[in-house]
């Protein structure tokens, strides 16, 4: 467990799982969880590259910023989903169909 490839493969797997969740899930919370997986995959990449690439601390700083932003994004998204629940009584993405296609 001490080479770059292992971490990159895990990150790619996390990314694929996140992508899968976003595309297939109809529950808004589950979609958000997929997005979180994608962000964490990117974080893992950044830190693995910074650790094994012999690079400076930039990668770690980048990952810290991403963590903060992910929290902000989820806070806003949950507020919007809560509002959706109050108005539609559902958090299914497909049931919000007021705007015509």
């Amino acid at each position, binding site marked *: 467990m001490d080479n770059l490839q292992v971490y990159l493969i895990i990150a790619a797997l996390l990314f694929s799982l996140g992508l899968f969740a976003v595309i297939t899930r109809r529950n808004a919370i589950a979609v958000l969880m997929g997005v979180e997986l994608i*962000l964490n995959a990117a974080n893992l990449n950044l830190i693995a590259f910074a650790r094994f690439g012999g690079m400076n601390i*930039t990668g770690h700083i*980048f990952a810290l910023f991403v963590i903060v*932003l992910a929290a*902000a994004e989820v806070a806003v998204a949950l507020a919007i989903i809560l509002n959706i629940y109050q108005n539609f009584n559902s958090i299914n993405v497909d049931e919000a169909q*007021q705007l015509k296609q």
Partner: protein
Amino acid sequence: MNNIQSIRLFIPELIIVVTILIGIIADLIYSRQKSFKVGYWILGGLILSLFAVLMHDEHNVLTLFTDMVTLDPFAVLLKTIILISTILVVIISRYNNEFNNYRTGEYHILIAITVFGMMLMVSAVDILLIYLAIEIVSIMSFVLAGYLKQNKRSNESALKYVIYGAFSSGLMLFGMSILFGMTGSTKLYLIANSLAQLGPASNFAMIIALVLILAGFAYKISVVPFHFWTPDVYEGAPTTITAFLSVAPKAAGFAVLIRFFHIVFGDAGAMQAGNWITLTDIPWGQILALLSVLTMTLGNVVAIQQSNIKRMLAYSSIAHAGYMLMVIPVLSTESIFAIAFYIFVYTIMNLGAFFVVIAVKNDTGGETFDDYTGIGWRMPLIGIIMTIFMFSLTGLPPTAGFIGKFYLFAALIKGGTQFYWLAFVGVINSVISLYYYMRVVKVMYFDGDSQKELARPVLPITSILIVLAFTTILFGIYWAPLSDWIRNSLIFYISSL
């Protein structure tokens, strides 16, 4: 330049930050009925910031905060466009009846934060800051789109926006993480240097990284196939926010796109037509050309079928993004000039068209074509102004839209014979767009009975519309000052080694 020295040159952004703080405190003090007064503080801050931006000594390329942000004439130009459009939107917001039962203090604060993010977006030269700035703009836009909490359509538009937005920025971030790993840096000019030395063994990873990063940019400027959020968000959001989202973040998105391509793909500022660094053996220029064709064709063809004016203008804004993207493959000074000119013109005419939608909605309470029957007789001035904007959006002389399109096509023709087909597709698309823009004019003047009584929109809306319409005509006849100003602003930060 180090952090302490940079602060002196960061004054426009700092003014916005102070304005945001003042707005938050003021919103705590004002009662519900007086909450709109926060808007006056924000308006004052934005105007001050605009002056601070314009006071900057031109032709002076600097980087601030240890190469995080650049201060070049191109950034100044884009900041000016963003601030002017936001000031107009803030003024109009006061007279938008959609907000009648809402506290609007937070609304203005959120707009100011978005402006701060966009000012960073147009000047960022570090992928970390590009990501942060895009996220600041996106997260605030999610809240703004869903600002009408009791309105189901506004809710739904916010939900769709947040899902597409979070997903696309996630993709972009993953691409950036790979790019960082390949090049070992987050600064664009260092990335460009390292890319030139990468061998063919890294092609596959580079393709993935660049495609994912492009997905993030494409979402911001709503390019096919990342356009799905645009019609729903534009239709459901409050109309002032639709006007805002359709111009300012789009201009900022194009600025990021141009900077990224210019530094990473361009030949270190040589700016010769078609002189792309052949990264990864993939013809990026042709791919972008294809995307632009898809974008404008889809925008125009779907816009024809719409019965809601806001939704029609949303598809038209997709089409306009396609026109602007069309010249990016040329990657010459001429093409970037054409894009900058078109962004300016598009900002004026698109804001105008959406402000007319607000004026009509305040009167008739609706935004479908049925609500526009006889508007030309009922509100004569608004009818004439809307006709001017529709002509300009189509690109007919003597309006600024014509000059903008002319420069776009001229840049393509100068780019060489391999771009002639793009110009041809662009012209065909302009003809298609004539149909649905003129349909608005037809409905306003020739449908329904013309015996209705006159209606008079409030004075501020009318006067801003008159100014915008006058500018549209003026730049269609005498555009030399504008084109000189923009041409002088095309000085980019390239590298600082």
